[in-house]
């Protein structure tokens, strides 16, 4: 049932206004008080989202508000309408809720930063863009805000833009995203040329008219956008570098919200994918591979934020895998739980960094447990949830994905997922043990670690509670509250019967695998019965492969960046300098040469001037004589 209301616009508008005011006058009039605008704005957004969600998810209404018509050109009609169905409601809760907590956290984290007001201008701007992305009801508005979140990501990754590495990382993120967006845009254009409309409803209804080839092409192109934005396998390289941005940015954008936009978009476009089994296969494969590859890389990293970043890539791989095997609701479920524990892990690392005076290398930490108990427990909860330890959040959602892959007839992906789960537990608890356990590998007299202040601790606590409890929205598996809430959205999806034995079997397998990872991490980093260095040496090539990110960055650098750079330089030398500058300078030289030539007339000799006058006279008289009768009628 649909209902048109007029207060939906508050959800995007409040953060937008906060962002604008902070951006325009923040430097002079607001400065350190910028959070007073941004935090309540996002809070208001969250409250309105909550109200809307209660109605949408509780009564299965669809809320709608039409803002204005953006493009009305003949047949091409693009309205800007805010539509909240169940999927959007869940996303809104995640986005605005986590945003609110991150905003509160940032008050403490960015307190000493001179760009305080700028931070609280870009962060609400991001919330605005993400919310609009989720609220859109047609592909074009979605794409506009897809780009907008990319822009905000660039602005926030490169927040400390004077640092060379941050500026480079921001550029890398934007450019890699752009490659995905290129495919995405092609997909949207293909939709338009085949169907003549971009509105979700109309597109999904018209899908049966298209040939399988077209639908597959559309699906693959749309997924290309998700590959870029949600850091799937070939285009994930930007996410680890994006850790150059402030930690709250990583928590919000690169854990909970922006990277999930791709997953959301594919879920939203599931009718298209359902009509293209080949595309779904591609999606699942890429998702599975991403989950595995990223997990192996994470196990070799020493930078605490990088570990969490690769973990994000891995979990996104799980979500994509779920989408690819048709387990739509588990994908969204995992998105939901992942937001909690990943944000928790990032904010926890931020607290650690804050305490350790911006030290990132875990090899220089250690033993922080005794000075930062709150952070420690929050981090442990997040790590356990990520690893899928029952009964924390990650367990429920991850298992459903593994089950979904099995019943969809692709058990190999389930096995790949289990292997990745092993690595997940391994790297997660490796991080915990390296950071918090053991003897401090730094000088405690130099650095005095302590728990973060209240503004930073409170979000940690809330997220920890969420990480524990969030899984229960999907309990019992396949039949929980979330499943029923999202059912109307995914009506067309295939329903598989899931035998209880399978669910239990996978649950046991995943728990075994996770405990194995934990046990090995414990052995290596706490009890020191396994020597990590020796292990790395024994694994040799495999270890080096993982430690260097499976050489993706290197290959890109050599195969793409360097040739393009050389090409650009060649163009610069041979077109810009030689041709364009040559033409412009050539014109100048020609003018100068001509002037030099004509300069010879200016002899200064009156007699020469008189000669020229006489010559002109003779010529004029001659012309008049010859043509006079016809010239002057």
């Amino acid at each position, binding site marked *: 049932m649909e209902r048109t209301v007029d207060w939906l616009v508050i959800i995007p508008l409040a953060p937008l206004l906060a962002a604008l005011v902070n951006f325009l006058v923040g430097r002079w009039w607001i400065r350190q008080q910028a959070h007073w605008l941004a935090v309540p704005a996002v809070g208001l957004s969250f409250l309105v989202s909550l109200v809307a969600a209660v109605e949408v998810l509780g009564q299965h209404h669809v809320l709608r508000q039409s803002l204005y018509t953006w493009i009305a050109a003949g047949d091409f009609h693009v309205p800007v309408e805010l539509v909240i169905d169940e999927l959007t409601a869940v996303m809104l809760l995640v986005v605005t809720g986590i945003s609110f907590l991150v905003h509160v956290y940032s008050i403490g984290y960015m307190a000493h930063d001179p760009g305080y007001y700028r931070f609280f201008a870009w962060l609400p701007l991001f919330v605005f863009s993400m919310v609009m992305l989720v609220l859109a009801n047609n592909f074009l508005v979605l794409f506009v805000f897809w780009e907008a979140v990319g822009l905000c990501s660039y602005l926030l990754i490169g927040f400390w833009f004077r640092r060379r590495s941050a500026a480079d990382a921001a550029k890398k993120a934007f450019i890699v995203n752009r490659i995905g967006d290129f495919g995405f845009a092609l997909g949207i254009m293909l939709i338009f040329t085949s169907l003549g409309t971009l509105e979700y409803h109309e597109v999904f209804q018209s899908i049966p008219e298209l040939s399988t080839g077209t639908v597959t092409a559309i699906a693959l192109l749309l997924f290309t956008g998700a590959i870029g934005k949600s850091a799937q396998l070939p285009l994930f390289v930007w996410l680890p570098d994006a850790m150059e941005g402030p930690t709250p940015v990583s928590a919000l954008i690169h854990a909970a919200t922006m990277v999930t936009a791709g997953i959301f978009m594919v879920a939203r476009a599931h009718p298209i994918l359902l009509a293209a089994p080949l595309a779904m296969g591609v999606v699942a494969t890429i998702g599975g591979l991403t989950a595995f590859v990223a997990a192996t890389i994470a196990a070799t990293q020493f930078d605490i934020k990088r570990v969490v970043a690769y973990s994000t890539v891995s979990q996104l791989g799980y979500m994509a895998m779920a989408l690819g095997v048709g387990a739509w609701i588990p994908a969204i479920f995992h998105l939901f739980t992942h937001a909690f524990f990943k944000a928790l892990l990032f904010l926890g690392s931020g607290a650690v960094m804050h305490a350790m005076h911006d030290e990132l290398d875990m090899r220089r930490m250690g033993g922080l447990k005794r000075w930062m108990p709150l952070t420690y427990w929050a981090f442990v909860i997040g790590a356990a949830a990520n690893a899928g330890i029952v009964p924390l959040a990650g367990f429920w959602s991850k298992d459903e994905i593994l089950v979904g892959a099995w019943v969809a007839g692709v058990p190999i992906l389930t096995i790949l997922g289990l292997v990745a789960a092993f690595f997940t537990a391994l790297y997660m608890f490796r991080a915990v043990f390296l950071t918090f356990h053991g003897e401090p590998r730094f000088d405690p007299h130099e650095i005095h670690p302590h728990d973060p202040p209240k503004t930073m601790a409170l979000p940690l606590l809330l997220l920890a509670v969420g990480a524990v409890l969030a899984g229960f929205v999907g309990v019992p598996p396949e039949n929980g509250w979330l499943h029923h809430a999202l059912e109307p959205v995914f009506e067309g999806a295939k329903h598989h019967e899931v035998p209880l034995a399978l669910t239990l079997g996978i649950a046991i397998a995943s728990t075994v695998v996770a405990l194995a990872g934990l046990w090995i991490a414990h052995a290596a980093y706490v009890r020191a019965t396994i020597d990590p260095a020796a292990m790395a040496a024994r694994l040799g090539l495999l270890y080096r492969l993982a430690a260097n990110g499976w050489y993706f960055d290197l290959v890109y650098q050599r195969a793409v960046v360097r040739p393009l750079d050389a090409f650009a330089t060649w163009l610069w030398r041979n077109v810009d300098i030689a041709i364009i500058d040559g033409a412009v300078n050539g014109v100048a030289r020609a003018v100068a040469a001509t002037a030099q030539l004509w300069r010879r007339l*200016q*002899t*200064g*000799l*009156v*007699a020469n*001037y*008189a*000669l020229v006058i*006489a010559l002109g006279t003779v010529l004029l008289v001659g012309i008049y004589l010859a043509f006079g009768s016809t010239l002057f009628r």
Partner: protein
Amino acid sequence: MSELSATHFLLLSAALFIIGMVGVLTRRNVLVIFMCIELMLNAVNVSLIGFAWELHQLTGQVFALFVIAIAAAEAVVGLGIVMALTRRTDTVDIDELRQLRE
């Protein structure tokens, strides 16, 4: 051509004018150039009188009168300039008076 007609006057005028013009273009002494200019003005007068003769009009003569007056004024000013110029630069060679070049 048994009757005196404007054609005679015009041919004489042309001859005088052209001789004057060649003199202006060729000679180097500023004063000789000036005299040639007067010659050219005079030639114009001749043609004007020729028209007055042929057309039984007095307008030609009036015009020629004005030309003479103006030639006189021009002679005065021109010679004044020549004197000032030669006082400064000590030469009457028009090829040396190149100040227009800069």
